[in-house]
């Protein structure tokens, strides 16, 4: 039926002559705005090195969430791709539903795995309990973007940006006072709980207790994080913008400081063009001693259950997460490298950071990075959205930080496995 209809439209697929010794693998990835060029490059190079493998891409999903939903919907159906890149905080959803292939047995058989630059830290990022759900491909941390022109205009020093939130708010208020719709700062708190985690972890807090039975952000660390968000609005005069509007406003030169993932760096550079001088630096931490930052990004996950394909997919995963893949994804997006060899090797990224100072902020924060927390149970997805809704109330100044903390604790507790 499908082919018949295809021919009716005169647009039948150009069916590739299936050679007996060619393995075809289908690859799916999210956020093509960041990853499309990167993926194309990696796939081309991989096929060049492995002429017996043909890589085709499924249509990319707009966000990590969309990508995850797609995998869950297609799980077990022939539409399921062989590989997908899943957000690091959603690996648990897959693991709990037993979707995807555990890589551990394959890695154990692989003798030179370690020497290829895959450290234990890296493996940790994509491990749920004992299951190696995937291989971390791109990692990110939140960084501090700013418009040096605006900073100068209000008498700030672009070379010495504030390292505390109080300093940020003060500067933001000054920039906002310039008028003409200019905003001092924006902090991308919506979409998911990642940027809230950055505040919470930055204060040494955590989401749930170690046994994952109760919330852990209902203490002073959590409250301080919420108060910081509150003060962004109260003192820093942060306007209530949607995620897209924040980016648009910043790249239009209408926002002084912007806090978001380093992964967006390349597209922000493009959006800014030569309208103003763009700079980046480290994000302030509430508690510089104990503070950490959540690791954003994704891991390559294998879905195919076909043993013949599995080997090819495994090779592809290593290739993408290996030095070559990293050397493409880092400059192409702004993500930080996960592979040790890529960072050290002259051939790959060693000189890149010397030549591209904007990319250093993300790299410099690597030591602070801890896994992005993922919630257990059936409501793993819903729980983050609920938190965001409560944060929204706070940003709109409808509730106090104390009330927000209470509401979040209640809402999240309700959605934890009973």
């Amino acid at each position, binding site marked *: 039926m*499908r082919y018949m209809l295809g021919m009716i439209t005169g647009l039948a697929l150009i069916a590739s002559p299936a050679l007996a010794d060619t393995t075809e693998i289908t690859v799916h990835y999210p*956020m093509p705005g960041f990853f499309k060029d990167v993926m194309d490059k990696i796939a081309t190079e991989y096929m060049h090195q492995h002429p017996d493998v043909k890589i085709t891409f*499924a249509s990319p999903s707009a966000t990590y969430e969309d990508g995850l939903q797609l995998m869950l919907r297609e799980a077990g*159906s022939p539409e399921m791709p062989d590989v997908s890149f899943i957000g690091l905080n959603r690996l648990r959803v897959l693991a709990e539903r037993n979707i995807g292939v555990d890589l551990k047995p394959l890695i154990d058989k692989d003798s030179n795995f370690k020497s290829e630059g895959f450290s234990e830290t890296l493996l940790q990022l994509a491990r749920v309990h004992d299951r190696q759900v995937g291989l971390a491909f791109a990692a990110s941390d939140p960084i501090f973007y700013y418009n040096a022109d605006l900073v100068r205009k209000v008498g700030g020093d672009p070379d010495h940006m504030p390292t505390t939130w109080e300093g940020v708010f003060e500067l933001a208020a000054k920039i906002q006072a310039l008028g003409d719709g200019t905003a001092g700062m924006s902090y991308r708190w919506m979409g998911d709980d990642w940027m809230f985690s950055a505040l919470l972890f930055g204060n040494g807090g955590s989401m749930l207790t170690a046994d994952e039975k109760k919330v852990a952000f209902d203490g002073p660390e959590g409250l301080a994080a919420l108060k910081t968000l509150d003060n962004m609005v109260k003192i820093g005069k942060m306007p209530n913008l949607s995620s897209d509007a924040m*980016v648009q406003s910043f790249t239009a030169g209408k926002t002084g400081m912007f806090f978001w993932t380093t992964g967006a760096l390349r597209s922000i550079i493009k959006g800014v063009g*030569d309208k103003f001088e763009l700079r980046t630096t480290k994000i302030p931490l509430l508690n510089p001693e104990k503070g950490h930052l959540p690791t954003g990004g994704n891991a390559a996950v294998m879905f195919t259950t076909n043993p013949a394909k599995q080997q090819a997919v495994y090779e592809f995963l290593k290739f993408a997460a290996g030095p070559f893949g990293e050397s493409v994804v880092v400059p192409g997006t702004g993500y930080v490298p996960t592979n040790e060899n890529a960072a050290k090797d002259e051939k790959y990224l060693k000189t890149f950071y010397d030549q591209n100072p904007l990319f250093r902020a993300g790299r410099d924060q690597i030591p602070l990075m801890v896994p992005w927390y993922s919630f257990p149970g059936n409501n793993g997805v819903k729980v983050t959205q609920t938190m965001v809704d409560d944060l929204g109330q706070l940003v709109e100044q409808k509730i106090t930080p104390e009330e927000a903390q209470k509401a979040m604790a209640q809402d999240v507790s309700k959605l934890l496995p009973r």
Partner: protein
Amino acid sequence: MSTMISATQDSAGVAVVVRKRPRAARFDELSTTARVLRLVVLFIGAAILLLPYAWMLSTSFKAQSEVFSSGLSLIPQHWAIVANYTKAFTRVPMVQILLNGVFVCLAISTFQILFALPAAYALARLKFRGRDLLFGCIILGLLVPIHAVSIPLYAASRWLNLLNTYAVLIVPFTLSVFAIFQFRQVIKTIPDDLIQAARMDGMSEMAICWRVVLPNAWPAATSFAIFSVVAHWNDVYWPQIVISQNRLATPPLGLLFFRAAEAGDDYGALMAATVAVSAPLVIFFLFAQKAFIEGVTSTGLKG
């Protein structure tokens, strides 16, 4: 007009009163003030309604760095038409996506008419057991949108391995209770003689349906087809659930893919793509506008 020249000058310069009288104000003709007022109000309305298009077109001509520099200027300082449209047509299979839309919409409206017309004819003109029950089902069907039953339909499509096919885009919509309902109204107005005459000529009921009823219901079918095409060209709920491949994307889905995949914040290119997916329908409507309005008129909307 004639009143204005009721007194004219003859060649000798003497005023000659022409036997013309001021005309009675006709109630269905507007006074000059009313005419101007009508145009002004309608133009303001049209300007508001068309504002988004103006911006869409203007942005599709602008370079990325210019789009978000604030200001109300519609004319770009740097033209980037070629770059934007090239991106829109090359980074996603835009032509394929548009053809998907055309194919899916045509298939849906064809099937809808194909199935609805005989049923409407039978409901309007023939007696059979279960007719009232069937009609009741149809009225209820008017109420249940696809959205509400998308979950079982999705489950069934998946079970039948129909995800990412043209079939799954078309089959759930092949039945339009709305079409049955509308055609039934129209068929009721067809003179009985016409149908009796066709029976005398030895036509089967099926033949009557296609050779007598269809030509009479044609305006209604046209306007229904336009409604149907508009609805399905625009639908994003169902395609979003069942299609995950660019190759099979319908225009809105293709646009969402493009927005996510290629455009990001490149609004120039995004708007170029928006123009590309909107244009076919707009052009289609502009051509069919007259037939459409006539069709709507014939579908039992009269008082």
